[in-house]
């Protein structure tokens, strides 16, 4: 664990000395996006990183005036986070007696994008793999949103497909938003996450559809939305509606 933190610190330092590296945006829930150069971007959530080291690298392979192709590669090391939530009493998400080994997951996706002046459409497909120690004594987190995202902690892999659509249906820009202007944009964001969760016994799935309004005013963005999740899980068929809210700060 120490080696990994050291490695991440060295990487951060190395990036920071490069003139091109800059923070693009960060949010309360959204990860911090760090632009390395025109083709590469890193993202991680700095607070969550402290208890679950994670990061993803987004590389642009090809682009023309309408389409882009990217690939996204990430990792997560959730052992420390899981140990902190294996407790008795409130916020004991896992049983206290859980034996949590070293868990490393890595996700690789390919993304195609189509964009115009007022819209952006992304189709992303890929898989996540878990390289785990002995997780025999580790129970799953059996809740719709959490189960697919923690599936590789106890199983070897999952498939994940995302359909993302963003439409700007209101925009007002006085000077290209480069100075202290009064730029205002309102976006409608729609996203479908489709998880295929193979286990030893069966194939389960989760489908999450979210709809959000995103309002951006110069350096701040406010996102408010709902996510509808449904799926077939080892603990039965479940669905639910979940609200979400975030504030994203953009560095211009």
């Amino acid at each position, binding site marked *: 664990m120490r080696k990994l933190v050291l490695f991440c610190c060295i990487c951060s330092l190395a990036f920071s000395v490069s003139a091109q590296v800059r923070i693009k945006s960060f949010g309360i829930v959204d990860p911090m996006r760090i632009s390395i150069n025109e083709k590469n971007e890193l993202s991680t959530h700095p607070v969550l990183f402290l208890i679950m080291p994670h990061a993803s690298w987004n590389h642009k392979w090809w682009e023309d005036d309408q389409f882009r192709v990217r690939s996204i590669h990430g990792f997560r090391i959730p052992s420390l986070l899981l140990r902190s939530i*294996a*407790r*008795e*009493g*409130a*916020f*004991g*998400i*896992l*049983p*206290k*007696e*859980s034996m949590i080994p070293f868990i490393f997951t890595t996700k690789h996706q390919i993304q195609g994008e189509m964009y115009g002046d007022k819209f952006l459409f992304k189709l992303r497909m890929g898989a996540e793999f878990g390289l785990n120690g002995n997780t025999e004594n580790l*129970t799953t*987190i*059996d*809740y719709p949103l959490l189960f697919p995202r923690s599936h590789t902690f106890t199983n070897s892999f999952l498939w994940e497909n995302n359909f993302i659509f963003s439409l700007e249906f*209101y925009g007002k820009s006085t000077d290209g938003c480069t100075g202290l202007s009064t730029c205002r944009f*309102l976006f409608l964001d729609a996203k479908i996450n489709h998880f295929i969760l193979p286990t030893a016994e069966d194939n389960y799935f989760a489908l999450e559809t979210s709809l959000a*309004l995103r*309002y951006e005013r110069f350096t701040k963005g406010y996102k*408010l*939305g*709902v996510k509808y999740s449904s799926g077939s899980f*080892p*603990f*039965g068929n*479940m669905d*639910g*509606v*979940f*609200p979400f809210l975030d504030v994203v700060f953009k560095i211009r």
Partner: protein
Amino acid sequence: MKKIIIVFIILLGTLTACDPFNTQFDEVTKVKYYNSVVQTETTVKDTLSIATWNIKFGGARLNFFFDCLGDRSVMTKEEVERNLDKITEKINQVNPDVLLLQEVDVLSKRSQYFDMMEYLLNRTNLNYGVYTSQWKADYIPSSGIGKMNSGNAILSKYPLSSAERIALPLIEEQSEFTQYFYLKRNILKVKTLVGEKELYLLNTHLTAYGGSNIKEEQLSVLSSVLDELKGKYVVFGGDLNTLPPHTYLKKDFADNVCPVTETDDNNYEGEEEFLSLFYDNYQAAVPLENYKARNELYFTHSIDQNVFWNRKLDYLFTNQTFIKGTDITHQNISQGGTETMSLSDHTMISVEFEF
């Protein structure tokens, strides 16, 4: 623009208001009926064997965190199967016509998503069942409990109908947050038809919460429900979490290792007369004079499996007649025919009911 945002916020609020973890009860989900896959033939009888048992969700004597004896909160599949098979074996040995069960899990994480109603009905001579939950949540974010659905059940060889879930008062002292995820006690009421005769069956599992008047309030609701059934054949019982009058030991039980609090579940002082109303107006399976003479022969509960049954919390009453001398508190081989200490933290009571 403002209108769109306002509509969106209202929609968001409406969608997510009220019950995000699905812990509340509505009319549709209150009671669930079950049938066994293979029906056992039944004959119309003048006497019925009736039993009650808190089966501790198939947890047998594993050391769960809530008993302060260990830190277990979730069982393995093998443990659940093994424990349920032993419970099934005991039920088949007694072979009751009607069985009141408490702490039956239906698709809960802690018991590996077993439907215990199906499991028991398909492995015993009981043909019909009704179930109502007293603890339900899509997710309980505490001690790794996760998804929960546990409650009261009535199983019978004879058809069941008109099942009702009667809600009991909640603990007012609890914060709204705790109360939201906490147990919602109830009375499960159902009618069974034996030939031409109708018998009303009521099963309940009252709060263990001490230090307030909640038990009295819940017993008062039970009494009112029974008053409405005057003139009908009624058997009621369950885990009342209350000691009978004339109990010698009311606190400082040897197996209570949890820190003592104001709401100590294991201190029954001041509750001595709570059940007098029922002993005065109904016939108890275990007559009070028998209990008074030798408390220990009728104890039905102990927390630690290394401490023999040390208190009576489980009851059967009727407004008709239990056949004298047919009651059995299944404490051990000599009293019930099998060893029961290892099956649950409660033991079964059975009795013959005369129509």
